[in-house]
């Protein structure tokens, strides 16, 4: 086959991990987000950011493209929803159920598919995601509510704060987002995180160095499912309802678009991508219900012109600017 098609994309600032001030600074900015935009939108941004942090760990830092992350997000949402509705579970218990269910699924799908090479894994993960969607749609209708989604989830309290109200809910999600930002940062600093990036750069060499690439990719997938399950469960808390669309392939596709838009393999990429995407989606749908046309077209342009996404392109331009300054 064509041998010269190896990765030649310029990668954004690999060797300098985000400084601690960026992590804490972002968290402080997030605390004031409801002052700028509506609280529900801000909550939605945070939930998708958690999802995106995990997805970016897999796509951006490990180099594995999954098109089936809706499965983990949706399963997390359903597991939490079922726990709230039938077991009368408390908020932390429901969220933990969602996370565990998503991770278990990732363990199974990963065992079947993670050995496959790039594009092949993308196809297989997508197909498994659709399998779950169709399972929830018709054969498991009795449990999942089929097309109507999972309804009648009781209103939830956490430490005597009612999570039915927008602001307490926002700060609840915001604290979890802060924790996950910190955790992601620590993962990237750890030897494991360095290993992930080594695989993305050159899997063959990492293998030759004696690392078990399959096992590390597998772990990366399961960790990423942790984030997706958490985000799914939080989405259930946020909506008090689980729409069937959480399992639909477009949920996976949206995540892919958000991550690429923000800049895969950059620390703040997912947050930025989610923010810009949801803002675009909300703005365009004011004018036309056909927002997918515009979002899809924008995505195509980004792939062609700015494959590094917003953060990647900014980092690159900034680096070029500094080089020129030094040259003068």
């Amino acid at each position, binding site marked *: *086959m*064509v*041998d*010269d*098609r190896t*990765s*030649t*994309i310029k990668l954004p600032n690999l060797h300098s991990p985000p400084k601690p001030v960026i992590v804490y600074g972002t968290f402080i900015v997030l605390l004031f987000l409801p002052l700028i935009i509506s609280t529900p939108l801000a909550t939605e941004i945070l939930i998708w950011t958690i999802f995106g942090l995990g997805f970016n760990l897999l796509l951006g830092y490990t180099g594995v*493209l999954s*098109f089936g992350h809706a499965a983990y997000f949706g399963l997390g949402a359903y597991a939490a929803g079922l726990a709230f509705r039938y077991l009368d579970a408390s908020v932390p218990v429901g969220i933990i159920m969602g996370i565990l269910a998503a991770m278990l699924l990732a363990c199974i799908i990963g065992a*079947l*598919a993670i*050995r*496959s*090479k*790039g*594009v*092949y894994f*993308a*196809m*297989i993960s*997508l*197909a*498994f995601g*659709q*399998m779950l969607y*169709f*399972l929830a*749609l*018709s*054969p498991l*209708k009795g449990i999942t509510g089929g097309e109507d989604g999972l309804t009648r989830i009781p209103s939830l309290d956490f430490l005597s704060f009612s999570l039915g109200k927008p602001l307490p809910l926002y700060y609840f999600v915001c604290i979890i987002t802060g924790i996950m930002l910190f955790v992601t940062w620590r993962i990237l600093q750890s030897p494991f995180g360095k290993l992930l990036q080594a695989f993305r750069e050159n899997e063959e060499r990492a293998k030759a160095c004696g690392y078990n690439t399959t096992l590390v990719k597998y772990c990366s997938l399961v960790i990423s499912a942790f984030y997706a399950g958490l985000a799914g469960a939080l989405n259930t808390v946020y909506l008090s309802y689980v729409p069937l669309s959480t399992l639909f*392939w*477009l949920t996976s*596709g949206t995540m*892919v*678009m958000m991550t*690429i838009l923000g800049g895969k393999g950059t620390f703040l990429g997912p947050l930025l991508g989610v923010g810009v995407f949801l803002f675009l989606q909300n703005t365009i749908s004011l004018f036309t219900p*056909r*927002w*997918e*046309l*515009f*979002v*899809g*077209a924008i*995505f*195509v342009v980004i*792939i*062609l012109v700015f*494959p590094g996404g917003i953060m990647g392109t900014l980092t690159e331009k900034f680096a070029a600017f500094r080089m020129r300054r030094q040259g003068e």
Partner: protein
Amino acid sequence: MSEIPWNVIAMQLFFGIALGCIFVLLSSGMSIIYGLLDVVNFAHGTFAMLGAYAVFVVVSLSDSFFVGIVSAVVIVGIIGMVIEFLLLKPLYGKDPLLPLLLTFGLSVAIPDFMKIVFGLIGKPISFPDALSGAITLGPLTLPGYRLFIIIFTLVVMISLWLFLKKSDLGMIIRASTRDSQMVQTLGINVSRIWTVGFGMGVGLAALAGAIAAPMMSATPDMGVDMTMTAFVVTVVGGLGSLGGAIVGGLFIGLVVAFTSYVASAYSSVAMYFCMAVILLVRPRGLFGEQGRE
């Protein structure tokens, strides 16, 4: 199974093969594109959807279903070649995931565009008169259109095989699939061969959409399911293998037909389940080459 009379089984077999034929056309296009360009075409089903709409437009203008099928292939093939030339070419030599992501973007944007042009509601396409009847074969009554699909697919696949084996262009395409740099060295413009190959693959998808259209009517969202089916067939048959596309397509067609008879709720799930089993037993697919999975 013993309660099911044999003629019901024979009917399901027939329906399964007819459905499988559509999958064969769809996935062989996908295989050609992957074999030649190393591109997984996420918008494959979207092109099939365009084929179905092309048939709808041409049939309403010319009143001939066969003119419709031919022009669907030509129109969509040309659209595909333009897209390959303008959008995909700049991505060769970069990250191998980028073409997949680009075609994914197309599969999000194009159906919405079709919704603006043709509306949300599907466009029905009537069966051509000559094929709308049924043919009695002993105790079996076979719907004529499905019989047509089987014969038509047979003719298309044999011509495709002859084209690839016997013609000069077919030989160049096979050679480029094997080693495009060597072909380039021999003084052949491989870049142009890629464009032609993409057009051909997409044309086959359009053909699948076109002949499926009278049975399911053309809707903007039909593409996603077809892409999904093409993926499953490709995983089952083996990525980039034409033989795999044929066997995998027929196999999945039969699986869908029989599960919709035995347990209709599971008909959409069954093919994914088959895929999981194949992955477990033979990760490279039935006909996949070693090392390409």
